[in-house]
């Protein structure tokens, strides 16, 4: 087997809060091959963003924050690496696109500065070389009149354009790994489509590995090689995208899919819902985190946390009582 580009094992990020320890990421493991896209889906509070930020080194261990486990990028353990080594990798080989393009850009700096800063830092380009490259990048993310935009301020650009600038910034040093955390949540559907398409094309062209984080299965669907669903800090099920959308073994992803309104299901469809709401991680007393909301819950689920196991068809699954696929099933929703 080829050595993965990113190798994450038993990653834990625990925040000490006034209400107790909150394990926002509670033992996450996955591998990502070069050029592969992993879609991570979860609702708010599931730990998906903290996972992305932990990999990116943006959650620093401190008195109130503990990070354990392994994040190995191309042979280097990022959690153990020296600050100097990490600074050389982050922003250059590993880059991130954030959710809110307005608050991620400095409102008093011109668009160009945002782009040239990274280039001059990592590539040691001269001012004029960096400018030339930055305009090329703006052009690449299909911003019209790139040279004029270079001298504008963030507020002069629309939301979609700002997100394109964010993508251009992330791609400025040709990263091998891109982490996109809800890259289109603040955008209109029409613009969302354009931005996602742009990301997909660029990833393909550059053979870039991507982690696409979203709360919406629809965003990840059709744009990922693998899909992982997070709940309460853990990956409860992951599978190749095709297998995942054909059938979900874990009741949570099943419920999530059934509660997503679909344009191609008949008008006024009564949605199957997941009753209740996610657990309070600071007050958790054990057992499967999904058990209070689970339709298949058994006594054992309330007492023990199901381990994450590899299934024979290449999935990972954390469930004692998975839902078996029915013969000839096409899709896992509307039932």
């Amino acid at each position: 087997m080829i050595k993965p580009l990113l190798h994450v094992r038993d990653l834990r990020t625990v925040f000490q809060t006034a209400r107790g320890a909150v394990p926002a990421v509670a033992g996450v493991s996955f591998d990502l091959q070069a050029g592969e896209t992993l879609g991570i889906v979860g609702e708010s509070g599931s730990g998906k963003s903290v996972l992305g930020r932990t990999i990116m080194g943006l959650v620093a261990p401190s008195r109130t924050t503990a990070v354990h486990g392994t994040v190995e990028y191309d042979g280097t353990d990022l959690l153990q690496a020296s600050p100097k080594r990490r600074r050389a990798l982050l922003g250059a080989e590993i880059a991130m696109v954030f959710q809110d393009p307005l608050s991620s850009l400095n409102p008093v700096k011109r668009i160009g500065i945002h782009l040239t800063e990274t280039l001059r830092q990592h590539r040691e380009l001269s001012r004029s070389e960096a400018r030339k490259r930055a305009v090329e990048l703006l052009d690449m993310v299909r911003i019209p009149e790139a040279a004029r935009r270079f001298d504008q301020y963030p507020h002069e650009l629309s939301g979609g354009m700002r997100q394109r600038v964010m993508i251009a910034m992330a791609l400025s040093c040709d990263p091998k790994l891109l982490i996109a955390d809800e890259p289109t949540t603040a955008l209109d559907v029409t613009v969302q489509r354009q931005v996602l398409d742009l990301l997909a094309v660029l990833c393909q062209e550059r053979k870039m590995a991507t982690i696409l984080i979203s709360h919406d299965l629809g965003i990840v669907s059709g744009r990922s090689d693998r899909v992982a669903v997070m709940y309460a800090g853990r990956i409860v099920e992951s599978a190749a995208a095709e297998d995942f959308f054909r059938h979900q073994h874990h009741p949570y992803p099943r419920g999530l899919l059934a509660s997503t309104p679909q344009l191609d299901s008949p008008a006024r469809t009564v949605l199957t819902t997941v009753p209740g709401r996610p657990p309070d991680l600071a007050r958790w007393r054990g057992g499967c985190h999904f058990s209070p909301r689970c339709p298949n819950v058994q006594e054992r689920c309330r007492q023990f946390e199901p381990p994450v196991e590899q299934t024979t068809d290449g999935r990972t699954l954390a469930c004692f009582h998975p839902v078996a696929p029915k013969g000839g099933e096409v899709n896992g929703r509307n039932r």
Partner: protein
Amino acid sequence: MAGTGKAHLRDGGARLTVKDLVVEFRTKGDQRVQAVSGVSFDVLPGETLSIVGESGCGKSSVARAVMHLPAPTDGAVQLNALDLGSLDKKALRRSRVAMQIVFQDPVASLNPRRKVKDLVQEGASIWGRGTAKSRDRDAREVLDAVGLDPDVVWNRRPHELSGGQCQRVSIARALVMEPDLLICDEILSSLDVSIQAQMLNLLRETKAQRQLSMLFIAHDLAVVKNISDRILVMYLGKVCEVLDVEALDRPATHHPYTQLLLESVPTVGSSRVVPSKAPAGQDLPSPLNPPSGCRFRTRCPLATPRCAVEEPRLERKSDDQFIACHEVA
């Protein structure tokens, strides 16, 4: 008069009728910007009309103008055949009780210092409805109806509730006034998928039980299809298309903008999306200086020179579909 026709209005019996609605704002330098330019629609008893469009198309401005928050610049709003524009301040206040609005941000729209029991009863006690005892009883009933346990949440304050629970309290607060019309302005967009599905089912049930008319403002067509009877598609302050939701279930030609919205909705399935390599689409033009003729023409794949000169009117395409377009109508 792009998309300003009234061919889609029905004769009589409407709970809410809006005709030629114009909402204008003044900007710095004494410019005027029209957020809504001549929009007409009606809502029948027990019907849900959804207004969809991108941000900045004027859909929220329509919702506020219907509530007279503030009154529209021009046009008529009739609730139960009563023209709200003709009323004085006191009478307007009185008749506005029959319309209740729920806003997008569930936490910010509730007073953080008040308890759920007071929040829900506030309207009824301002209007002096019933006795303190009967108001308590009504509040408990309606909390129960929106899926909250009155005994649990009764003495809680908004910060002790989740976003979804706060949104339920907001809905309870609106329903306790027994409105004829419920206006929902993007009430689902800040909620998680599983909570959103719970709310959609709740709204559908409540509407059926109470013969409630709803004006549902949203940007997500998949959600809209799930909840609506009729859909109005808006672009830059004008109406592009009005259609019954059933028209989405059959192969039909749509306004090019509706088509764009439909194609942009992410679909869930195992098939791979083929990313289009088309250049970046045009952004929404500035409403300060909207395009001449049809306002959508700068982004429209079907645009012809005629579209720049002549504004299309809403025309009947079939019994349940009205389109304002020179090319497809």
